[in-house]
């Protein structure tokens, strides 16, 4: 098909803008990468921009051998994978009934869930509930309280509601029950939004910090985010009460921090292209109804 001049200009502008956007997002990443690959003296003096100075892998070596990064990485994986599966399952189970107009108490339940998004008991009451269930120091304390994110659930519900009635009615006439309707019709049509929510949950679990800090006691169950966050914020702690030799030994070098940050971010960058495969156009026939 012949492209009009207008369309061609559009494409050029599009690519230009996106390239610009991509670059301004890439540069800080390059900076962190460069810091992780540079020698300490240059890093301390603030000389490193996006190119490493005196390329070396020492920071990574130090990270691998001098910290608990391997264990933490593994823990993060377990927490993320299991948590995401559980949450997606529960969210689907929550959104599907609420998307059916004939579901009794639909409005009431939706409101009740929105209410929980707004009002929160706070750290201590939540902790006490978790404790009474015997979940302290168990990964269940990370998965169960986050089982259904009201935000994600509401998004899913909206998408489910947008599935054309004709499809559903047709299947129902073929004798489909709710479960079959859900698994055979609704879910396959919701590929993109399911992929999105899986990503949201995955990212949420990978980045969980406060929860892990408070509910997990054993140091060998800590996740990567806690480890990296501690390194980053350690600089901000008062050093007034430390003895001089302790300041030296216990403050994290900048290069090590940068290496840890890279290890933390990498999986997220690697995973995303796989999620993007689910964004297939035209899965649904017919326009979304309001």
């Amino acid at each position: 098909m012949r492209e009009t001049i207008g369309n061609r200009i559009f494409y050029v502008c599009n690519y230009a803008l996106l390239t610009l956007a991509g670059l301004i997002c890439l540069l800080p990443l390059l900076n962190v990468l460069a810091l992780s690959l540079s020698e300490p003296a240059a890093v301390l003096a603030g000389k490193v921009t996006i190119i490493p100075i005196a390329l070396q892998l020492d920071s990574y070596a130090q990270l691998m051998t001098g910290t608990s990064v391997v264990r933490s990485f593994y823990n993060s994986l377990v927490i993320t994978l299991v948590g995401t599966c559980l949450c997606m399952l529960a969210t689907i189970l929550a959104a599907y009934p609420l998307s059916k107009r004939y579901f009794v108490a639909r409005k009431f339940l939706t409101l009740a869930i929105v209410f929980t998004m707004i009002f929160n008991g706070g750290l201590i009451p939540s902790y006490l509930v978790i404790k009474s269930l015997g979940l302290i120091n168990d990964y269940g304390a990370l998965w169960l309280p986050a089982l259904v994110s009201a935000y994600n659930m509401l998004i899913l519900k909206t998408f489910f509601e947008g599935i054309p009635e004709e499809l559903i009615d047709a299947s129902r006439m073929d004798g489909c029950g709710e479960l079959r309707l859900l698994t055979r019709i609704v879910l396959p049509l919701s590929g993109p939004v399911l992929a999105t929510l899986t990503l949201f949950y995955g990212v949420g679990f990978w980045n969980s910090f406060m929860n892990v800090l408070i509910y997990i006691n054993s140091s060998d169950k800590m996740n990567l985010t806690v480890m990296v966050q501690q390194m980053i914020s350690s600089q901000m702690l008062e050093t007034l009460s430390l003895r001089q030799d302790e300041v030296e030994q216990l403050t994290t070098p900048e290069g090590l921090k940068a290496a840890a940050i890279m290890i933390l971010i990498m999986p997220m960058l690697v995973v995303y292209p796989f999620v993007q495969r689910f964004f297939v156009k035209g899965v649904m026939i017919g326009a979304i109804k309001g």
Partner: protein
Amino acid sequence: MRNRKLAILMVIVMCLLAACSNAGETNESKGSNGTNGQAKGGDKAAPTSPAKQADKKKITVMVYDRSNVPQGEGSYEKNRWTEWINENVPKDVEVAFVPIPRGAVRDKLNSLFASDSAPDLILDYDPAIRNDLVIQNLVLPLDELIDQHSVYYKELIAKYPALVKLSTKEDGKNYMVGRLDGLDINHYVFVRQDWLTKLGLQVPTTPEELLEVAVAFAERDPDDNGKKDTYGIALSGTSENIITYMYQTIYPVLDSDLAYVNPWEQQKAAHALKKRLYEAGAVDRDFLTDTTGKKAEQDFLSGKLGIWGGNFDAGKLASLKEAVPTAVLTPMALPRTEFGQFAPELNSPMSPIGLINRNAKHPDAVIQFIDFISSPETGKTMYYGLEGVHWKAGENGCPQIIDEEKYKQEVSWNRDYFMLTSKYFDACLKQPSQNMTEVQKEFADLTEAARALYLQPSSPPPYAIDKNVVPTLPQDLFIIKQNTENSIKDIWVKAIVTPGYTMEQALEEAQGMWNKSGGDKVDQYIAKWFSDNKSRLIPISEWYTIQ
């Protein structure tokens, strides 16, 4: 048929949940989610070695989790040092360590206390957290416990009663155990000697000279590169203390009778100097956005800053030398002002660190542990490692590390385990080590010079008393103080950067705001506290007796 399928689905979901919660466990054999409650009390013991006698007293001790246990050494709960400690501690005591993440101590301790599972022995550097635990009635008074069960620590405080005084509260009881480090410097204040020499200037000793030198550094291109890209002095981060301490504006300010004074005049003078420095162009105009002081430090280490203050080490010196091989540093005494001659931040010779949980099952065992961990022999092994394995005796009688790599892998990360050890009694720590690099030797020399300069009783720190004995304000006064002080700091900053805005105006505005917000009530409370508790105060002069 539909319902059956749903029922099957439910069963599968339940199985998944149960299976996953089991999968989430690693070493510990805790129950899965259900109503069997968690074991209560301080019983977080994961026994570090199998099958010890059942009548051992189990105690739990806090240790900072800094995520820095090297690969292969184990975890914070179980590693060569926890085992060594358990082998050498008094025979009927068994110690389990509870790691507390260094970056979130308050939150973690709060949740542990709220659920009755806090460790028996709490060790922390932050006086605010320690005082909070005392005020909330979560810790035990220690006078009798020490008297009845302690040997070593009891002797220690008999010789150094100031240590107890530090943690005795208004009710006359002592709540903390501490350690003696000996008075030492903490912050260094450096000036670029090579720049002074090049410009024909002397180390500044008065505020006027400081201004002159700083302006010269900024204006006269001391690094000789033809560009006006150097700064005289830093005002952000730890360097701010140069001015703050010089003018004695750090809380609490007490006069010669140990009566509390709200340091308005001092604040005005300090900010007046800051304004003059700023307007003369001697300071980086971005200093207000440099909230952590990182940029100031980077400027100093890349050779662009003339006067800087803060924590320093050989690594930073190496960085500076690499950027500017000809750089020469010299420690600088704080210029003398109309308020006196003061020293920059020093390491207090003694600090209270440990508290015992009110719900500890075996406080006597905790005291025994304290005795063990604070004894010099324990400290020596934990600091240097095992004789023959990590160190051997050197010529000066002090331990020499055999293999640096092995030491780093196996020993040097264990510092938090013996926080209570008094370094004061290890003379070897102050000795220079045998094989030092050029940079390390230079740094050691600088340290000696700084010590000679800052540790004089004639130039004490600006606070007249040890800051461990200060009033804790009731909540409403605390809120007033926090908020109003915050707003007043904004006024001072505005005065610095706004041309034509004089310090008199700023002072008037600040005082007006303070009084309007109820600041006078705060002043009265603090003043009354200091006069009521005068006998408990520890004057700074006592610091110099433990050097």
